């Protein structure tokens, strides 16, 4: 265990919740970071400090608290920007990644409905105007957050949804037929970077290269990648950035209630507003309104200041450890976990069972026991996993299973946590008499 690049026992101490026990004194083995991560003291302290010293509406007041609050909020934006190699004014704070992705989908709806009535739109907004027959491309391994908003958009505009399939090995089926799937009618290609159910890290180069050729917008759902590996939004694949990248703050040690959308400057500039109201305007009369530049254009209402400050502290914490070391650590967890799980008779990993281009998220099913029952036994051992379709129901349908057990790991997990998982699964087999 000494080979691990992180001192996990020290890291665990930074997370107060990991000191608690569950189910009558069991050590908590938290393997549900894919849903939301735990928060270190540094983040909780930063939030509390903000509330106790500088709380006020950012960008709104003329008093000292408002100034401090604005500076704290904008400093957080700058930290998040630097974390992904972006400029501060390319970072929009949202409540979660779902809002970030909906913001993109609604950009199309808003541009389309405004264009239809001859309303004015920002320069470059034509690419967001859809007509029946236009196509939107996703994949079968999307989280519902990167699927349902596009289905809804199609229902409202007459555009057609198309998708990449999944290979038997749990990889994106991006080789054949790609130039048919992504074609002149394609307006947007929106793909998950790391699958939250399979753990697959998708090589986005091929689809996005083709998307560029046909002028389609390239969107990345980076919920499960940015918290776990170094990601430069300007270099997500083959020296090129995507156009828009969405992810959650609460999955990368930040507070609940915060997500992020990054957009290339020119792309954000060309987008009409989504949520409208205070602080996203330039001038307002009863007759009409003009809008501020990004990022303000997309941050209507009093923002989640404390959560942004907390996310800034999370970024500091991650930087101090180093994202490359975290990625390496998770890779070692993966190399340890895959064979340990494969040892178990009757257990099938759903997703890649090789450690290349995959993260430390492991979905599996156990013969003869429903995933929820496996999860229940694990829970009685103090092992917290998620069971169900993980908001990636079509992926389950693809593999013809109703649900999986999912263990998703992070910097605070170690081999002992994996061992507890394996022991728990074996115990479930014993309990249900299938071993």
């Amino acid at each position, binding site marked *: 265990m000494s080979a691990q690049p992180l001192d996990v026992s020290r890291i665990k101490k930074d997370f107060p919740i990991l000191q608690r026990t569950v189910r*009558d004194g069991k050590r908590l083995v938290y393997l549900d970071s894919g849903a939301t991560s735990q928060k270190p003291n540094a983040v909780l302290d930063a939030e509390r400090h903000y509330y106790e010293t500088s709380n006020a509406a950012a960008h709104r007041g003329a008093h000292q608290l408002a100034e401090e609050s604005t500076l704290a909020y904008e400093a957080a934006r700058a930290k998040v920007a630097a974390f992904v190699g972006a400029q501060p004014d390319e970072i929009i704070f949202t409540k979660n990644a779902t809002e970030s992705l909906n913001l993109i989908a609604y950009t199309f709806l808003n541009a389309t409905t405004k264009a239809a009535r001859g309303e004015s739109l920002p320069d470059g907004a034509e690419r967001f105007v859809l007509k029946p027959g236009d196509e939107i491309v996703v994949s079968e391994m999307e989280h519902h957050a990167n699927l349902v908003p596009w289905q809804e958009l199609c229902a409202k505009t007459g555009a057609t949804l198309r998708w990449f399939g999944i290979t038997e090995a749990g990889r994106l089926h991006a080789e054949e037929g790609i130039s048919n799937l992504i074609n002149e009618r394609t307006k947007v290609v929106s793909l998950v970077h790391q699958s939250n159910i399979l753990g697959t890290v998708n090589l986005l180069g091929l689809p996005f290269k083709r998307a560029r050729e046909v002028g389609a917008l390239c969107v990345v759902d980076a919920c499960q990648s940015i918290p776990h590996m170094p990601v430069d939004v300007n270099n997500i694949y083959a020296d090129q950035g995507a156009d828009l990248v969405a992810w959650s703050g609460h999955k990368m040690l930040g507070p609940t209630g915060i997500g992020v959308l990054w957009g290339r400057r020119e792309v954000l500039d060309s987008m009409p507003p989504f949520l409208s109201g205070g602080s996203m305007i330039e001038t307002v009369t009863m007759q009409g309104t003009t809008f501020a530049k990004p990022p303000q254009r997309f941050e209507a209402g009093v923002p989640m200041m404390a959560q942004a400050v907390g996310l800034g502290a999370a970024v500091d914490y991650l930087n101090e450890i180093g994202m490359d070391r975290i990625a390496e650590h998770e890779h070692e967890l993966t190399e340890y976990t895959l064979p340990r799980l494969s040892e178990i008779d009757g257990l099938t990993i759903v997703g890649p069972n090789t450690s290349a281009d995959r993260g430390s998220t492991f979905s599996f099913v156990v013969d003869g026991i*429903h*995933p*929820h*029952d496996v999860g*229940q036994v694990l829970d*009685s051992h103090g092992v917290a996993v998620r069971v169900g379709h993980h908001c990636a129901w079509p992926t389950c349908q693809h593999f013809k299973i109703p649900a999986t057990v999912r263990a998703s790991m992070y910097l605070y997990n170690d081999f002992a946590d994996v061992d507890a998982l394996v022991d728990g699964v074996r115990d479930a087999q014993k309990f249900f008499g299938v071993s």
Partner: protein
Amino acid sequence: MQLEQMYQQVIMDHYKHPHGKGLRDPFDVEVHHVNPTCGDEITLRVKLGGSGEAVAVEDVSFEGQGCSISQASASVMFDQVEGTSLTEALRANEEFSALMQSAVQDQELDEELLGDAIAFSGVAQYPARIKCALLAWMAFKDAASQALAKEQTS
């Protein structure tokens, strides 16, 4: 909380040897219910007989896929409602819902109406499993009320 409190022996028995499983004809109404949190589902048919006060549940049959709790619950439900009067069946249904709320509220329960279903009291301690236990009962309630409405309008 021990695992055995949820997975009581009666539950495990019903899970392994479910009663009344399989879709049967004839039926008045068929419903399909899904538990959106896990994707599990049940297809359930109801055939009513008699009329007025004497309406009885002639048959209830089901097919589906789900966890041990949901499967066992369907089997137990079959025992409690099959062949009884509709009134009795719906009261059992109410009673079972109340049992599932029992972690939240303290209530007097009619053990007779519940039969083996009383074994699900441990499940009520696990909020995430309550939907599992209720899946079949909710489907039955839905199907029975549709069947009744059909009968009354025909």
